[in-house]
C-alpha cells in the first residue's frame, strides 16, 4: 500500500479515535473571550508551540520505532514520552493526550501489529502503560510507512482541523471560511514540518511556552458546561 494513501487515511477526520470529543483548546479559548476572527492567529500560536512539540515527538517516535530492534522499542519510547510530558506542564492537557493515545492505539493495533506498544494483557488491576498521543501517532506512522515529513504534516493538519471543526460547532459560521483558514495555515504547517524534520533525539524536542493554552486547558477541566473534553 502506498504511504500517500495511508497518510490520507490517517488524516481523515472520520478515523475512529474519539477525536470528535476534542477541540484543540479552542472551546476554553472562546469561553475566555477569544473572538472567532482570532482563530487563525490561535492556529498559528499552536503550530509554533504545543503542536510543534507534538509533531516533533511523533517524528522521533517514528524514528525510534524504525531504528530500535523489535522487542527493545518501548524503553527509548518511554524516554521520549517523558520528554513530551516535561514539555506539557498542564496535567489536564496531558490527561487528554493520554486518553487520545489510548483511543488511537485501539484503532491502530486493530490494523497493524503493535503488540509491543500495546503491551501484555494485565488483567484486573493496574491498567496498561499509557502512551501520549504523539508517541502513538508516530509509531503508527512508522508501521504505515509514512515519511518523517508526512508524519509531521499529519500531526499539524490534524491540529488545524480539530480546532476549526470544533470552532464551527461552538460558533457556527460559513464552513467554507474554515476551509479557507485551513488552507491559509499551510505556510505555518510547512514551517513546522521543516523545523521538526531534522530532530534526532528527545533532548532536541522544542520546549516552547504557551501559558494561555495551558491555563485555559486547566480551567476547562473544571467547567461544568462544555461540549469538548479539551
Amino acid at each position, binding site marked *: *500500500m502506498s504511504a500517500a494513501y495511508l497518510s490520507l487515511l490517517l488524516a481523515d477526520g*472520520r478515523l*475512529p*479515535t*474519539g*477525536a*470528535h*470529543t*476534542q*477541540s484543540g483548546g479552542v472551546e476554553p479559548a472562546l469561553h475566555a473571550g477569544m473572538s472567532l476572527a482570532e482563530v487563525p492567529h490561535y492556529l498559528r500560536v499552536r503550530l509554533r508551540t504545543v503542536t510543534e512539540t507534538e509533531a516533533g515527538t511523533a517524528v522521533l517516535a517514528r524514528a525510534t520505532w524504525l531504528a530500535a530492534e523489535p522487542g527493545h522499542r518501548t524503553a527509548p519510547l518511554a524516554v521520549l514520552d517523558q520528554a513530551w510530558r516535561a514539555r506539557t506542564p498542564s496535567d489536564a492537557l496531558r490527561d487528554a493526550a493520554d*486518553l487520545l493515545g*489510548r*483511543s488511537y*492505539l*485501539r*484503532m491502530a*493495533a*486493530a*490494523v*497493524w*501489529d*503493535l*503488540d509491543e506498544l*500495546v503491551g501484555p*494483557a*494485565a*488483567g*484486573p*488491576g493496574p*491498567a*496498561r502503560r499509557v502512551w501520549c498521543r504523539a508517541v502513538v501517532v508516530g509509531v503508527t506512522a512508522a*508501521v504505515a510507512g509514512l515519511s518523517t515529513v508526512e508524519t509531521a504534516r499529519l500531526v499539524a493538519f490534524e491540529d488545524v482541523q480539530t480546532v476549526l471543526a*470544533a470552532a464551527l*460547532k461552538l460558533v457556527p459560521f460559513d464552513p467554507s471560511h474554515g476551509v479557507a483558514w485551513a488552507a491559509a495555515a499551510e505556510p505555518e504547517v510547512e514551517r513546522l514540518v521543516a523545523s521538526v524534520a531534522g530532530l534526532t533525539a528527545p533532548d532536541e524536542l522544542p520546549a516552547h511556552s504557551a501559558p494561555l493554552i495551558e491555563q485555559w486547558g486547566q480551567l476547562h477541566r473544571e467547567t*461544568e*458546561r*462544555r*461540549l*469538548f*473534553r479539551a
Partner: protein
Amino acid sequence: MPDPVSHGGVPRSLRLGVAGPVGTGKSSLIALLCRELGHRLSVAVVTNDIYTDEDARFLRSAGVLDPERIRAVETGACPHTAIRDDVTQNLLAVEDLERDFAPVDLVLVESGGDNLTATFSPALVDAQFFVLDVAGGGDVARKGGPGIARADVLVVNKTDLAPHVGVDVLQMVHDAEHARDGRRVVALSRTDAESVAELRDWVLQTLERFRAGTLVPVDPGPMAPHRHAEGQDHAESHDHLHGPDHPDEHDHHHEHDQPDGHDQHGWGEVRPGGEETRYRHVGAAHRP
C-alpha cells in the same frame, strides 16, 4: 462486536444502552435499575452528556451507586457519533470501569438525549432500551424510528402522568407493540412496583442469556429493514459476509467492520491488504 468474554484478561460485563429523547427519564431509569439491582449485582454507569455532566451528577447525587462507578464521556456535540459510529471513548470508559471494579456484572450506558434516530452500536452495547414518556404525547410511538421499532425493549415511561397529560397508556402501548412487531414494550412508572419488577427481571434474564453466550447484540439500525424488489431477502443475498447472528433482519448499512475485530463476519479474509504480513488479521485476543 465486543469480545464476549474479556478484554486484556478483564472479565466483560453485560453492557446495556439506554437511549431516547431528552427528558423521557433515561437517568431516572438508570437510577431505578441501580436501586433495584445494586445490592445483588456489581453495577457501573457511563453517561454521555451533550453539554454538561448533569446526568452523571444527578446519578451521583441520587445515592444509588458508589459515585466512582459513574463516569461521564464528552461527546463533542455529537451524541449520535459517540454511541454509534465512533464509540471509542465510550468503549474505553466501559473497559476502565470493568477493570477498576472487576468483576463488574452490568454497565449501563446512557446516551446523550438525542432525537428519535440515535441508537447504540452493537460494538458498544449488548442490548438496549429506548425510552419514551407519556408526556411527550401519545402519538410518538406511532412515529416509529429505529429505537422505537427495534431496540430490545421500548420503555413507555411515566405512565402515572397519563391522566394529567391526556394520554391513553393502553393505546400508546398498543401502538408501540404494533410498531415493534411484538418486541417487548414495558409501560413503566416508578410508583408501579409491578412494572419495575418487569424491567428488573428483563435485565436479569438478559444477563443470564449473556452469560450463557446466547445473547446476540442486534443493531436497531438507522434505517428500516427491507427486502429487494425481486422479493429476495437481503440477508440471503449476502450470507457470505454475515454470520449467523443476523438471522432474520438487517439493513443496508454493512457496519460489520467493527474496530473490535471479532472475526465472525469473515473480516479476517476480506480485510484490505490481508495478505501482507504487516497487516494483521484482527482477533479479539489482541485488543488493547
